[in-house]
């Protein structure tokens, strides 16, 4: 569905990404792993047309998009949930959702709103509240919801777990898995959290300082010793247990169950 | 900073300045003196805005105060007082600069812009009122500098005095910028919180920035009064403040050579244009479009000003770069 070939990007003199080639087949969840600063956000922003590659091609369903404007890319069906949520803080929840449908020609967004509320019922109670006053988990739900209103065919998720309590993360990942399995949504998931992402993905790429270091199926990567050392932190008891347990507990939802945010807005990241 | 190379640059500058009045007609000597005063004011504003990040749209107020202080002193006591009046104008203006530093402690850029703008307007109004009291509506007549009873040729003397003061204050600005104070200025401009964490006191640093900047501008005002021979409140208005601001942006923010280039360019541009365009009516239109157009184009093609552009371009020519940056 999406194919990157030999893509180079740099910020001024500093190269951010080098020779990136990857493919995302239709209907799959592909994980993009790597530590902070490895270039995951840069790559996602390049796909969305916010940044321009110096070299290489990006094609979506056979059409070249590496020089396309962001709004053209969005209307082609690639929608991104950016890192750090990036909500319109002073706009209400409803207005945020409406902006998700900015490019939609049909004006009937209600059905899409209802779908979002079925995943995240808590948003329905917050409709007229300013997005900036939501808790961290609710914000992430709104960010995902807003992207869903655009009816994406490829959803780019940038660090959805950032700064959220594990319980919330687990529920968000359940929704992502469900969107993929039931609605056939293709997902590119950029995450630091390797255990969790491997739990819901079909295939994964590992990015290290701007280069693709490895790729493989979740099983292959879990068995790879270098990956274990570098990204899964198997040396440490805590993070290992935590993530594996969460990953194990993610199954498709039997019934779409409520996901409510109980965590606190994180004062650490402002 | 390569000392030998720097010395060469200073020597070149001094000799050009020394020769100019003998090759140029008297009118241009006069214009160059005025441009020199602008250079000083631009240096002062750039230290404050370019280096320390504190915007000011009220520097005309400092020019006015400087010119009034010097003008009142020499018109009352005679031209031989010039030598005291000049530094005194700088010191008094510097101290009034501290008036602005108080709001600067609390206010962000745009809010400070309006506060300084108000300061400039207030100074003009107060000085106009003062002219009413002293019955000097048409301005204070300022005598030229004198030594004892001997008065000196005004244009030529003022040219050399201005040149000397510009060189001296340029050297001081260079010292300030390259030492701990200059580093503190940039630090509070870029990241106030990190600056505080390094032990830099915001109040103290901002106070120094305003003090020094107002001092430079006050000296510029005093020189202006003595070059022109008159100190008048309305001469320095919002337009002056904005022109000073354009000078440093055009030349290059946070750059001493940039301040000089921008100030020389904008103060001499109208004179140069007068040589080319005879008709008064066309002159106004052409001057406005040219000046405005230049500002727009420079920002588009040289976002960091003329000096920034020169330095960047010179990366392709290592020898030229060494000469320009001294590094």
């Amino acid at each position: 569905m999406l194919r990157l070939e030999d893509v180079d990007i740099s910020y001024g003199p500093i190269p951010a990404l080098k020779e990136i080639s990857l493919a995302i087949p239709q209907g799959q969840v592909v994980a993009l792993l790597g530590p902070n600063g490895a270039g995951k956000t840069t790559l996602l922003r390049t796909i969305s047309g916010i940044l321009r590659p110096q070299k290489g091609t990006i094609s979506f369903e056979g059409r070249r998009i590496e020089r396309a404007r962001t709004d053209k890319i969005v209307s082609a069906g690639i929608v991104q949930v950016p890192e750090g949520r990036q909500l319109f803080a002073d706009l209400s929840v409803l207005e945020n959702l409406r902006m998700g449908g900015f490019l939609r020609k049909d004006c009937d967004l209600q059905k899409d709103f209802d779908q979002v509320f079925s995943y995240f019922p808590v948003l329905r109670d917050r409709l007229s509240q300013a997005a900036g006053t939501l808790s961290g988990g609710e914000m992430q739900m709104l960010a995902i919801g807003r992207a869903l209103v655009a009816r994406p065919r490829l959803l780019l998720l940038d660090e959805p777990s950032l700064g959220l309590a594990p319980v919330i993360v687990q529920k968000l990942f359940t929704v992502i898995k469900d969107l993929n399995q039931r609605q056939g949504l293709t997902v590119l998931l950029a995450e630091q959290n390797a255990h969790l992402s491997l739990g819901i993905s079909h295939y994964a790429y590992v990015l290290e300082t701007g280069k693709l270091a490895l790729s493989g199926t979740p099983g292959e990567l879990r068995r790879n010793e270098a990956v274990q050392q570098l990204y899964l932190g198997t040396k440490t008891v805590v993070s290992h247990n935590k993530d594996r347990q969460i990953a194990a507990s993610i199954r498709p939802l039997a019934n779409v169950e409520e996901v409510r945010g109980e965590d606190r807005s994180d004062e650490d990241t402002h | 900073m390569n000392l030998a190379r720097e010395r060469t640059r200073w020597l070149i500058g001094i000799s050009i300045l020394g020769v100019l009045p003998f090759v140029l007609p008297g009118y241009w000597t006069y214009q160059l003196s005025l441009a020199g005063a602008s250079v000083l004011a631009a240096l002062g504003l750039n230290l404050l805005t370019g280096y320390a990040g504190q915007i000011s749209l009220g520097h005309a107020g400092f020019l006015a105060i400087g010119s009034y202080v010097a003008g009142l002193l020499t018109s009352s006591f005679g031209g031989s007082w010039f030598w005291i009046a000049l530094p005194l104008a700088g010191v008094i203006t510097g101290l009034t600069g501290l008036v602005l530093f108080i709001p600067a402690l609390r206010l962000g850029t745009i809010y400070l812009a309006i506060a300084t703008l108000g300061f400039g307007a207030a100074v003009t109004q107060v000085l106009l009122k003062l002219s009413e009291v002293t019955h000097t509506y048409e301005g204070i007549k300022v005598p030229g500098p004198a030594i004892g009873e001997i008065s000196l040729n005004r244009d030529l003397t003022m040219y050399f005095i201005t040149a000397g003061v510009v060189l001296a204050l340029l050297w001081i600005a260079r010292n300030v910028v390259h030492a701990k104070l200059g580093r503190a200025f940039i630090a509070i401009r870029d990241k106030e919180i990190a600056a505080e964490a390094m032990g830099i006191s915001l109040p103290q640093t901002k106070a120094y920035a305003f003090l020094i900047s107002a001092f430079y501008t006050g000296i510029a005002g005093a020189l202006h009064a003595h070059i022109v021979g008159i100190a008048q409140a309305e001469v320095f208005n919002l337009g002056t403040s904005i022109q000073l601001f354009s000078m440093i942006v055009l030349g290059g923010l946070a750059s001493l050579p940039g301040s000089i280039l921008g100030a020389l360019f904008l103060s001499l541009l109208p004179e140069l244009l007068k040589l080319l365009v005879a008709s008064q009516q066309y002159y106004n239109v052409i001057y406005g479009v040219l000046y405005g157009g230049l500002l727009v184009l420079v920002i588009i093609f040289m976002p960091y000003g003329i000096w920034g552009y020169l330095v960047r371009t010179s990366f392709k020519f290592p020898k030229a770069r060494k000469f320009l940056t001294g590094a």
Partner: protein
Amino acid sequence: MLKVNQLSKHFGGLKAVNDVSFEVRAGEIVGLIGPNGAGKTTVFNLISRFLAPTSGQIEFDGHHLFKYRASQVVHLGLVRTFQNIGLFPYMSVLDNLLLGQHRDFHAGIFSIALNLPKARREEALRTDEALKLLGSLGLATLQSSLVSSLPYGTQKLIEIARALMAKPKMLLLDEPVAGMTSFEKERIRKLIQKISADGQLSILLIDHDMSFVMELCDRVIVLSFGQIIAEGAPEEIQKNPAVIEAYLGEEAAVVET
């Protein structure tokens, strides 16, 4: 060295830091960990005086910290780094390092303005020290590079170097290895071990990289929802059920039992 006593900070209704007490002894390396939003950076901001506390006291090296302003804390020998790098991007590496020693410049405005010998000597002396430090970190070639042109990991290293220029008694490091490659992490770990080897320097650090924290720290404090839930040696912390629960969330903890 550092005594935090019943410290609280509330933002409106949010109790970001709630009745936190702990101590860092001289020469100790203490890790402050906890899930995002647990209040770690708030604790740092309180100690470095960028936030005023709702209640509580902090004592550093015998001084009551709340008597000092943010810019004075460094004079006591307490220096911090920042989560998103507190370097000045448009200054050279050398100038950044010199700023670390800002308080040690004593020349007055006149000797600076006139470039008098006193100011020049001081400048030369400090520059020398900074260059030595850069050399010992293997960064000597970068002295005149603009900070903004350097890779992230190097910037983090330079920020720690700048903090060292202030000759601190205690360092507060906010996520010193976040976003680094394993190679860069190793470099930072060695540096921290080296500077604290003589037992003269205390360090309080925040990080999410557990292996880094566990390997380096003498003691670890775990913060969750603004409160300390555990404190002890790294091995104890790793086994502590309350810590595991804080990281996993309630539901997952249930799964475990």
